């Protein structure tokens, strides 16, 4: 039993819904009580879908439990077929139905529907949403592409010369973070370097498309959490290699192009030069002098493994930030994240406990938080600038405009998104110089985010408290502040105040000082600015 305030992932059947909703002509019959229909609103409200997800819920009630829930499932399944006439169906149980063990798969098969039915086993008490999506995609791929797999041992026939190489784009689903635009961006990029997209799946794919998965020369895995298992199976069944680089950030996009070129048998240099590298403004924007102020900004990163790993890389290599925290809720990828964290000299935070993440942010007091919807709220509450980099996301993270994360345009979007919540370079400078000035007063927020000053101040107080609490916890709060020193501290611009407090207290503790005076404050400043 786990005490949970907020969850990063829903149950595995929600993952299956993300796949079904992304596809065309597939219908999902879910054995579930009425309350589970809440999941529809994730799609219709958060993603603003203009259609209901293709899901029929049996909505059994307590009084059905004594009689025949299995019969109810069969009627619902038949009625769903009659009404929606899908090309194929998936059937399964939600957490409650799993306990009553009606075997939706067997029941549906017994109906002899004129379309294929794929049963799903998604253990609700062990697994979570992304796993459910990955498993569903894998089952579907096997069911529809499987029959066309060559006999084991048969080598892959060489591509007919003169034809362009073809790949599948795997992993985009409904409710995924920026999946719609990532697919468009990467398809465009592939087209430019001479690679055709054979099938994109699950997003937009029909059952028929799935049956053609084996036709492509290789697979592009956009989201390993969702498509990893399927890609591995395609590799075994069809000898299709797949990409390992996720094209998030300029450096990774270049590496991705090189990887694709080598899988496609295109010359790498030619592929890279086919791309107008000027399309990415990130490198120049990052080198331009205004960005100097980004140097060493302490950033905390949390999300699904793919986005968290990429964000850390981008933060470090492309923004010049210092990665002070890195973590993921994707336990399946814990090892990769741990390794990456080690490279930044930190320990990865592998958890799906929101409280742990919150405590970590409060303790680290970063300058910027990059995370999911949850971290956005943590940061908002603590008054720390933040940007969203990973699912789960909320309605505002499905923007009307084209805003991919992947590829060169994605890098542009990332640059803007991460820099926006921070102070402008010169502005930060002026604030430091005129800290006593009424216009540049201590609680001033970035001028382009002016209205949030009060929230930020409130957040700061909370941050202070949280930090104090965190330090209490660490047992090193033996230091107290003289009133004058406290006053002096409050003159320091808010975005460095936390750091100043921390450094001063560390300085004092190291020297066995019980009381921080104005002198201690400046001694510490001198000490740490060496």
């Amino acid at each position: 039993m786990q005490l949970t305030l907020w969850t990063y992932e829903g149950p595995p059947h929600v993952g299956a819904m993300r796949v079904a909703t992304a596809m065309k002509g597939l219908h999902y019959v879910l054995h579930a009580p009425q309350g589970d229909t809440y999941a529809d609103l994730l799609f219709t409200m958060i993603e603003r879908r203009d259609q209901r997800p293709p899901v029929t819920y049996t909505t059994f009630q307590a009084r059905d439990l004594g009689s025949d829930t299995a019969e109810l499932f069969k009627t619902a399944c038949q009625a769903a077929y009659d009404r929606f006439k899908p090309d194929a169906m998936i059937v399964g149980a939600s957490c409650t139905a799993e306990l009553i063990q009606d075997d939706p798969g067997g029941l549906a098969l017994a109906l002899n529907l004129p379309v294929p039915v794929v049963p799903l086993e998604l253990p609700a008490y062990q697994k979570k949403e992304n796993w459910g999506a990955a498993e569903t995609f894998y089952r579907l791929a096997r069911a529809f592409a499987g029959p066309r797999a060559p006999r084991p041992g048969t080598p892959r026939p060489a591509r007919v010369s003169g034809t362009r190489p073809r790949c599948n784009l795997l992993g985009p689903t409904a409710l995924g973070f920026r999946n719609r635009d990532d697919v468009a961006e990467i398809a465009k990029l592939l087209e430019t370097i001479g690679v055709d997209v054979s099938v994109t799946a699950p997003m937009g794919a029909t059952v028929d498309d799935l049956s053609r998965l084996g036709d492509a020369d290789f697979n592009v895995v956009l989201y390993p959490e969702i498509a990893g298992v399927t890609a591995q199976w395609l590799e075994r069944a069809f000898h299709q290699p797949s990409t390992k680089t996720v094209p998030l950030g300029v450096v990774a996009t270049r590496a991705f192009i090189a990887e694709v070129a080598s899988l496609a048998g295109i010359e790498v240099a030619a592929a890279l030069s086919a791309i107008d590298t000027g399309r990415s403004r990130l490198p120049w924007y990052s080198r331009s002098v205004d960005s100097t102020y980004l140097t060493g900004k302490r950033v905390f990163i949390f999300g699904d493994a793919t986005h968290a790993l990429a964000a850390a890389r981008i933060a470090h290599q492309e923004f010049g930030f210092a990665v002070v925290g890195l973590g993921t809720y994707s336990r399946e990828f814990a090892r990769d994240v741990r390794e990456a964290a080690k490279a930044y000299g930190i320990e990865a935070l592998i958890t799906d406990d929101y409280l742990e993440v919150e405590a970590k942010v409060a303790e680290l007091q970063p300058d910027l938080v990059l995370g999911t919807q949850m971290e956005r709220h943590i940061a908002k509450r603590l008054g720390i600038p933040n940007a969203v980099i990973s699912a789960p996301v909320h309605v505002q993270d499905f923007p009307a405009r084209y805003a991919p994360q992947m590829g060169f345009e994605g890098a542009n979007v990332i640059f803007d998104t991460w820099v926006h919540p921070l102070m402008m370079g010169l502005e930060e400078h002026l604030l430091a110089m005129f800290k006593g000035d009424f216009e540049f007063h201590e609680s001033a927020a970035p001028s382009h985010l002016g209205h949030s000053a009060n929230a930020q101040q409130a957040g700061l107080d909370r941050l202070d408290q949280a930090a104090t609490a965190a330090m209490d916890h660490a047992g090193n709060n033996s230091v107290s502040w003289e009133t004058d020193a406290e006053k002096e501290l409050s003159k320091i611009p808010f975005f460095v105040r936390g750091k100043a407090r921390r450094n001063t207290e560390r300085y004092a503790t190291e020297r066995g000082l019980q009381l921080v005076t104005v002198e201690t404050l400046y001694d510490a400043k001198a000490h740490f600015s060496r």
Partner: protein
Amino acid sequence: MTLIAMRSPSDSPMGCDNRPVLRQRGQREVFCGLTSIVWLHRKMRDAFFLVVGSRTCAHLVQSAAGVMIFAEPRFATAIMDERDLAGLADANDELDRVVTRLLERRPDIKLLFLVGSCPSEVIKLDLARAAERLSQRFLPEVRVLNYSGSGIETTFTQGEDACLAALVPQMPSEPANAGKSLLVVGALADIVEDQFRRLFENLGISTVAFLPARAASDLPAVGPNTQYLLAQPCLGDTARALDARGAKRLSAPFPLGVEGTTEWLRAASIAWDVPSDRLVETVRGPQARARQALQRHRELLAEKSIFFFPDSQLEIPIARFLARELGMNVIEVGTPYLHQQHLSNEISYLPESVRLSEGQDVEMQLDRCRSSNPDIVVCGLGLANPLEAEGLTTKWSIELLFTPIQGYDQAADLAELFARPLVRRATLEV
């Protein structure tokens, strides 16, 4: 899969108004009772709601709350895993561990609800026993109660009913010599509560209490001298529990709209022998103010047709208000559950032409809705955008629960909730 049982007046079991009710059995598109935690925890400020359920339950509560991360959320889920399913003894130990950890973190909590879910009910985890055990351990600091918000037992607002029904046995008994007291039952926004308090005072009814109280730890007393008014239509079990404590229900429509509010106050006035001119005097001002505020919306809403999907059980009283005070043409009123006795007043006020439906086959209901092409559809969040995309205008029903709508001074706000989508549709040129 649909069984249509159109009850003819003759086999309708009870009710003063023998109109037919359409009952279909198919997919229901409604929340379960866990959802009511979202407003109950805002109302009872020293109570914590711990759902004992699955990841689905946690995800539901969080999605219904709009992923609104409250600074201090007073609800959480104890998510059961395989090990809890394997052995109930361990599940109980686990629950004790989770509760202990929770109460350590939150010393401000005075009342803890263990909220049952479908999984906890199917595996027969006895939360009543658990609540007793934990109460013994944590009293007097914390009282632990339980109720079910499961989707196999409850729909949406029935969660509030189950919660309040669990509180009733905890209410102190009124002293033997207690005078008459009035109890208003059903969660109301504080501002509405205060308005009603003032109105009752002006009527000379001074001993008035509300259930739930703002602090769960000061529950009002109850007994044979208590008479109660329901402020919400979903409270069947709570009413039964109050009856069992000797309290008497004052039969009245619900305090929605000018008419509903007046009749509701009148029921109390009669029971308290308030002279009728005092009632008239008391409500004259607020009534006039409300009528005037409604006038603007009436111009827009009169003659417009409306279709209700079942959701909160507020559908019937709201339809009555829209039909009688704003002149709307109500096509169908769906309700998840129809409490004939508590709603008899309301139903008799509804125009004959209104189709009443209880329960749901959402696909068939969507067919009916489309074919009747209403000017506005009241439905849940799962249906709203898809219907808008089909060209219909919708009002999300969940807003009816998060907005203060009861009483005179909220009547126009309630009307505005229906006017806004129409105004918006008329304004947009895209």
